[in-house]
């Protein structure tokens, strides 16, 4: 229990958010929306890390969340640069058209 909320609810909420992100990655064709769904999945895991860190009174979990945020920022910067370069060359970011590397 954290402030009267069982940890199981946090587990359930994180699982649902993670699944929403996973379904978004599978069901959409726009690369940018796939990126956003990956961010959603990362955030679900972050929420669970913070919940367990508060549950066990251990600050390590929150420090891990900092590092995940730094890695997510780096990933987004490089990924969006790659996407904008692909768009400049191929004029699309549709994953069904970009299905082979040699375009």
């Amino acid at each position: 229990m954290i402030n009267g909320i069982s940890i199981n609810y946090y587990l359930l909420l994180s699982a649902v958010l993670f699944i929403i992100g996973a379904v978004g990655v599978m069901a959409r064709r726009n690369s940018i929306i796939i990126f956003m769904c990956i961010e959603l999945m990362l955030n679900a895991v972050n929420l669970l890390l913070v919940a367990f860190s508060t549950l066990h009174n251990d600050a390590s979990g929150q420090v891990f969340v900092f590092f995940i945020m730094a890695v997510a920022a780096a990933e987004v910067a490089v990924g969006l640069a790659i996407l904008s370069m692909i768009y400049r060359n191929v004029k699309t970011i549709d994953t069904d058209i970009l299905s082979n590397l040699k375009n």
Partner: protein
Amino acid sequence: MLLGYTITQWLFGILSFLSIMFGLMVVFSRNPVNSVLYLVLTFFCIAGHYLLLNAQFLAVVHIVVYAGAIMVLFLFVIMLMDLNHDNEPQKTWISKIIAGIAGGMLLCVLVGSLKGSEQLGISQYGSSQIGMVKNLGKVLFSEFLFPFEIASILLLAALVGSIMIGKKEIK
């Protein structure tokens, strides 16, 4: 106490509902700009969850980094690529249904495996001060000092890499 639940439990329920709703809207909205805005709302709800979990500093950092920096980058790229349309090509219905079934099965597996975790080894209960800047700073700059420095190198590498990739041509 409202209807047998405390204020914190009400807040948790409302924030959970809103974050799941906005998360679904991210996936299902047609326009990419709407998706970005719904994702920003989802991030605000998650920041509210951090506040409920006594992680105040993390909540502020979350809003600044995600809603302030990353989402603005997304919006900028969407505007740059001129994707602000409602009629982008969609996947076929069969693959959407397959994606939904796969997600539902994954959810079943996760929930089923979490059902056995009710007797978790709980050491102490909430109302802690570990989410404050002072405690987090102490841990970050003593125990995790080396990973912190590595993270700075990672960010530098990402900066250089994205500039090199994003340039028109390398002279």
